[in-house]
């Protein structure tokens, strides 16, 4: 349920807003407790009537392309590079989550989202025993974006 909406909005965002081409989308449920993250990651907590953690991870090619598109032709100041990357990573998860929210039951009323949190220099997230990790890999002509939803299976699927 939640994941389908996130996949749809992520695809629309990448295609329509960013102008990227999507070549493949693969969904899988992780059997292990640990989620291995890509180099650049941002996450948002979903609370209220739905409790899920949404994590979006980018490979280098994808994030660099998104930064280029967000910068709209402006040059990147090296002293701001890391902050810009974190900022873009956060804005993307924030935008996708915001687009998905009205498609949740009751148009997302009663559901809250936290500001995005950048995760740097961390390679793994370990889930609680009762929750599930369901992951989606969206491959584009400019790298891969991974969406991970962590929470109760009946809410995510």
């Amino acid at each position, binding site marked *: 349920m939640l994941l389908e909406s996130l996949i749809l909005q992520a695809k629309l965002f990448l295609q329509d*807003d960013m102008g990227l081409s999507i070549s493949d989308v693969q969904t899988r449920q992780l059997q292990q407790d640990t989620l291995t993250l890509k180099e650049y990651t941002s996450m948002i907590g979903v609370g209220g009537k739905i409790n899920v953690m949404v994590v979006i991870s980018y490979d280098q090619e994808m994030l660099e392309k998104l*930064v280029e598109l*967000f*910068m*709209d032709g*402006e040059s990147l100041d090296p002293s*701001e590079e890391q*902050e*810009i990357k974190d*900022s*873009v990573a*956060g*804005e993307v998860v*924030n*935008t996708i*989550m*915001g*687009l*998905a*929210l*009205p498609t949740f039951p009751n148009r*997302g*009323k009663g559901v809250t*989202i936290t*500001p995005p949190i950048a995760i740097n220099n961390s390679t793994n997230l370990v889930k609680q025993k009762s929750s599930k990790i369901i992951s989606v890999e969206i491959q584009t002509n400019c790298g891969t974006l991974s969406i991970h939803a962590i929470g109760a299976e009946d809410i995510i699927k």
Partner: protein
Amino acid sequence: MLNVLIVDDSLIIRKKINTILQKLGHKSVFDATNGQEAIDAYAKYRPDLVTMDITMPDMDGITAVKKIIGQDASAKIIMVTSHGQEDMVIQSIQAGAVGYMLKPITEEKLAQAIGEVFIEYATNDEDDDLEIDEL
């Protein structure tokens, strides 16, 4: 030319709005990263327009709108928001904001939002009505 106060905790959004404002012939007087900075900067610079993010750390945009309107009832504040924050947009409008703009931010959207508030900067595209009526 309008003097604009940009309020957003995201560096890339502040840069984007700044770049677009320059293209439109306006000027950012200060970039604030949270609501409290916005209130202080508003008192100092008295800008013609404020672009205000809703979700920010320390003090959110709705609280900042209330406090700025408390300082200056004629303040012109446009909320910058994502889809899915309609309830918060309504609260912002009730608090005194004059409009809103949905992310992703584009030159067309910002120009249109400014034109809705300042008639002298209005664009002529009738298809670009702000979505505020749909709330």
